[in-house]
């Protein structure tokens, strides 16, 4: 049985918050530090710092030193895992729906045959 790498539950609880998801979105381009990020939100710098810390612990973002600045960067790999899993689920359900269709076609065929027999009598 294949289990997700440890910490992925943390990834998704980290992403369960609207502000944190927005930070992740902004940090994809990896241009801003915590101070610049904080300027986008009507909440305190300390609150934004806290959100960034949660994301960092979950491995969703990392801080990278560029010169004298510390840039916040999104770890795309962590975010892509969920999408890959949902794609697999889609395939699973598509196959099930194919089988549902076969089953319906089969029983419809059985009724048609019965009716044909009836009319031939």
């Amino acid at each position, binding site marked *: 049985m294949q289990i997700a790498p440890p910490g992925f539950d943390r990834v998704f609880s980290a992403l369960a918050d609207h502000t944190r998801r927005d930070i992740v979105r902004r940090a994809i381009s990896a241009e801003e530090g915590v101070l610049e990020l904080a300027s986008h939100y009507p909440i305190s710098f300390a609150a934004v710092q806290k959100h960034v810390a949660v994301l960092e612990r979950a491995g969703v973002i990392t801080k990278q030193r560029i010169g004298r600045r510390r840039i916040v960067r999104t770890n795309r790999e962590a*975010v892509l895992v969920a999408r890959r899993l949902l794609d697999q689920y889609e395939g*699973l359900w598509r196959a099930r*729906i194919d089988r*549902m269709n*076969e089953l319906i076609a089969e029983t419809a065929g059985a009724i048609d045959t019965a009716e044909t027999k009836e009319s031939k009598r």
Partner: protein
Amino acid sequence: MTVTAVRKDPQRLTLTIEAEFDASVERVWQLWADPRQLERWWGPPTYPATFTKHDLAPGGRIEYHMTGPAGDQPHGYWDVLEVDPPRRIVLRGGCAYADGTLTTEIPISTIRVGIEELAQGRTRMSIENVFPSTEAMEQILAMGTEEGQRQAVSQADAILAEETIQL
């Protein structure tokens, strides 16, 4: 293809899939309500499902296992949260050991099924899956699916090819 819409939300771990069938609401309902029909489509051909308990009533329980090519038998269950025949089912399920005890205290998915008539003999089914974590998703996908899934698709293609030749 009868799948008409797919919505995936990777942040909320939700997958919604909609399909349309050339059949009545009653007929489509039977796909879920009749355990013998359910086991024809739930598992892929390499992992057929057997439903050993099927109490489709609020508070009821559904239990099943799948049998793999190597004789492995992953078990699963659903608790029936809501039923409104022939239109709505809400299930919460997880994995279990062969003796019926659960592998985890936490259910690993919620499934909401909606069935509605679009026109005479044309029915839409929507299936919403909600997962609590990616670990839960991995666990369900590990229940004999991936390899069998590919086979199911190729089998369906073979049937479709046959039908085309017959036409």
